[in-house]
Every structure is written in C-alpha cells, then in structure tokens.
C-alpha cells in the first residue's frame, strides 16, 4: 500500500509536469497515440526478456515517426493519421499478446496494477522518472518557447526538430511510467488533465507547473487510497479524482471558471 502510494505519487508528479507542455502544445491526441502504441513494444520486450521500458520507448517514438512520415507523404490530415497509426500499433500489440506464450497479463497492462507492482518495476519507474524530470528541467525554457512560438525559436537558431523529438521521447517515457499506475487506456488522462486543470487556474507558467504537479500528486494519493478502501479500480479512482479536480477548476477557477468569470 505504501509502495503503491509512493510510486503513484511519483508518476503523478512527473506526468503532471509533462502535462503542462502537452496541453500548451496541443498534443493531447499525440499523448493518446503514443500511450496506445507502446503496447507491442511492451509485449515484445517481455517476450525477449528485455526491460519493457526499452520496448515501449522504441515503439512510442516509432509510432510518432510513422505518423510524421505518413502525414508528410500523403494528403491525409493529421488527426486521421494519428487515429490510424496508433490503433494499428495497438492492434498489433493485442495480437502479439495472444500469440506469445508468456505470463503477460493483458488487463494489467491495459488498466494498470499499482497495488501489485514488483520491485524491479519500481526501480525502472524511478529511473524513467529521473530521466524525464532531468530532461524537462534542463530544456525547460527552450521547450516553453518551442510550444509558444516555434518560428521565433527557429529564427534565433534553436534546433526545433531536436526539441520536437525530445518532447516526444519524454512523452513515450512518461507513458511507460504512467502505464504502471493507471495502464495504457487511462494514461492519457495523467498526461492531459493536470495541465488542463492548472491552465484554468493561472496565467503564469511557473505556477501552472506547480499546480499541475500538485493536483496530479494529490489525485494519485487520494485515488490509490480510495481504491484500497472501496476495493475498486485504482486507475479509475485516480483518474476520477483528477477529473473531479478539473471540474472544480472549470466551475470555480478565479478568472477562467464559468461561475466566476465576469460576464462579458
């Protein structure tokens, strides 16, 4: 229980930090895509005895590269390409799960199982979180500028292509970490909701980051606690609390909430 609380809080905090960039960049759909597309990677890594974060990372970045390639080389619009590619990857993952003789528990990957997390997984999650936070802190200002005004970033000689792939790599890693706690299906909530909640509460990026991390950690702790005492789905509880916090902000946020907005 304590272990589960700690790891969910950790993952929640890291995803919360990243979610600020996701919401500002408008990459919610991309987060959804990457989190689903890591499934075949996870399965293959299990089958080959590799750390599953490696497989997930390769397939996460691979899916995004595929999306970029198809979009560039065809006339199909981006949202269609995203929908098409990630479901393809996900379907491949489902088939692989049913074909590999191993003890992979599909429900566990899809819906997470933080209460039964193994020691090895905990170690991996710590490492992933460390890398993600380090990269996000190191490139904090560049990434912010990249989300805000890529043209300016480019015109002062910042390598925007690198930042694009950096953010995507970090997203893949965070998706893997989130997968542990809430599973593939709901990880996108971890990557979007805290950022959206915080965005309604402030007009300052620094404050937005802290609010996102705070609300995310709080949701994880409350969610795990609730699920333990009510014996219900952990992922469901965490995301429900997150959604609840969002609704509160949506209604009551000082300037941007619908009940407090000065009528114009």
């Amino acid at each position, binding site marked *: 229980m304590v272990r589960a609380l700690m790891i969910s809080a950790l993952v929640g905090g890291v995803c919360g930090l990243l979610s600020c960039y996701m919401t500002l960049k408008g990459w919610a759909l991309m987060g959804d895509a990457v989190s689903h597309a890591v499934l075949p990677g996870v399965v293959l890594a299990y089958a080959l005895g590799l750390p599953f974060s490696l497989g997930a990372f390769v397939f996460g970045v691979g899916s995004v590269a595929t999306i970029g390639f198809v979009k560039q080389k065809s006339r199909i619009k981006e949202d269609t390409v995203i929908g098409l590619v990630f479901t393809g990857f996900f379907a491949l993952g489902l088939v692989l799960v049913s074909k590999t003789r191993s003890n992979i528990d599909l429900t566990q990957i899809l819906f997470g199982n933080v209460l039964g997390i193994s020691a090895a997984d905990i170690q991996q999650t710590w490492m992933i979180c460390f890398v993600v936070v380090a990269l996000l802190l190191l490139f904090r*200002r560049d990434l912010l500028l990249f989300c805000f005004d890529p*043209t*300016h970033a480019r015109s*002062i000689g910042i390598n925007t292509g690198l930042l694009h792939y950096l953010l995507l790599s970090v997203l893949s890693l965070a998706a893997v970490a989130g997968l542990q706690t809430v599973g593939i299906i709901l990880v996108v909530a971890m990557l979007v909701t805290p950022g959206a909640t915080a965005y309604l509460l402030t007009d*300052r990026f620094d404050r937005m980051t802290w609010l996102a991390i705070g609300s995310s950690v709080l949701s994880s702790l409350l969610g795990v606690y609730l699920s333990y005492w009510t014996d219900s789905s952990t992922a469901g509880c965490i995301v429900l609390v997150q959604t609840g916090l969002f609704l509160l902000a949506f209604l009551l946020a000082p300037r941007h909430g619908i009940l407090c907005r000065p009528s114009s």
Partner: protein
Amino acid sequence: MTIRIAAEQLCVDYNGSVALYDASLTLPAGCICGMVGMNGAGKSTLFKALTGFVRPSRGRIRINGLKVAEAQREQAVAYVPQSEGIDCDFPVSVWDVVMMGRYGSMNLLRIPRQSDRLAVRNALERVELLDLRDRPLSALSGGQRKRAFLARAIAQRASVLLLDEPFNGVDVRTEKLMAELFLQLRSQSCSILISTHDLSHVREFCDVVVLINKTVLAYGETSEVFTPENLSQAFGGLPPDVLRGQTP
C-alpha cells in the same frame, strides 16, 4: 554598402505545388521594404524561407553574407509574427516574451544575466510597455501584444527584422509608435521587411517595395513600383476602380 538580405532565384514548393519561383530580392542595410501581395501570393513562404522553416528547392539566400542557419546563430534575424499565429492565452508575461528574444545569446539553461535584463528593460521602454511588464500576454490589447513582440525583436538586437502584417488590428498609438521605431531602427542600419496589404502604409515610410505574386513582379522605389499595371498584376487583375484610390 552592406547587403542584409540577398535572395537569388528562390524556388519553394510544397509537395509538388509551387509556392514561389524565381524570386530574387536584395535588401541593403538601413532600408525599410514593404512586401505587398494577395493572400497565398507567397509572402509567408518567403518569410519561412528566410527563417529556415522551408528549404528552397532552388536558389540561395544570404543574410549578412551568411547562410540562413549561420545568420540565425549570430542572432541576425528576428521574426515578428502575425497576432493570429500566436496563442494569446499562453501563460507567459510580457517580460517573459521579450526575454525570449535573448535566449539565443544565453547559455544552454537560458539563465538571464544582468545584460539580458537590461536589454529587455530597454526594449520595453522603447515600445512603452515597461509598466505592463508583469501582465500576462492574455491581458494585453492587440496593439500592446504587437509591441511586445516588436520589443522581443529589439531585445534580440537583430539586424534583419521580418514583420508579418504588423499593422493588422492595431490602435493608432501603436501604429505611430511602430512607425517611429522602424525609422529609428533604420538609422541604426537595420533592415526591415514588412508584409502588408495596406498600401497606404507602404507609401508612408517604406524606402522600397516588392510586389509578389508567386514570384517577384516588381521591386524598386515605391513610386516606381506602384503603377496601376503592377498593382493589378499583383492583385490578380482586380477592377481598376478598386485600385485607383490606392495608387499615387
């Protein structure tokens, strides 16, 4: 005389459709150039080529005698975006926006030094926004926002300024202030390329004008270029009475 922008026989195409062909343009130091053309005539494409966002399929660009990427590393190019191209609800303050002009001269972590703060303060003073420096971008008017982005270009100390429709939806005060700033920058030997569809502004303070419609139709002193024939060519043959009020 120093040449700021030299574009030679530029061709740009997107997936087979031609956006710009055989476009040549030379801008000396200390010169304000108006770029006039319809929507889709290739104004944005030229800007994108000059900021390295698209690679020309043919031709070459030199900025201060350097390749685009090198000139960008020297902080020579500043781009002032159209208001529509920017998410105005983005959680940044005026100060933050202008500080972004200094990023290219900072170290990897982008920690501002005293000189960066001075440059930002100075730029904000010049656009008369110092009092609003802590305001979030979303709390500014269209004209104030425009000035914030112009301050960013000033803080960057670029020698080439690219402005995308700077007079769209700005108040009279901003318009006057911007025109004064352009003249100041010109006297500091900056070169300014302004895309606009408002011909009256061009006549007011542009030294040269370039008419664009997929290529450079005409380029030269404003009075020489603004002939009814040229303008109707640039605007795809609009009836002359639409143009008459705008020609000299």
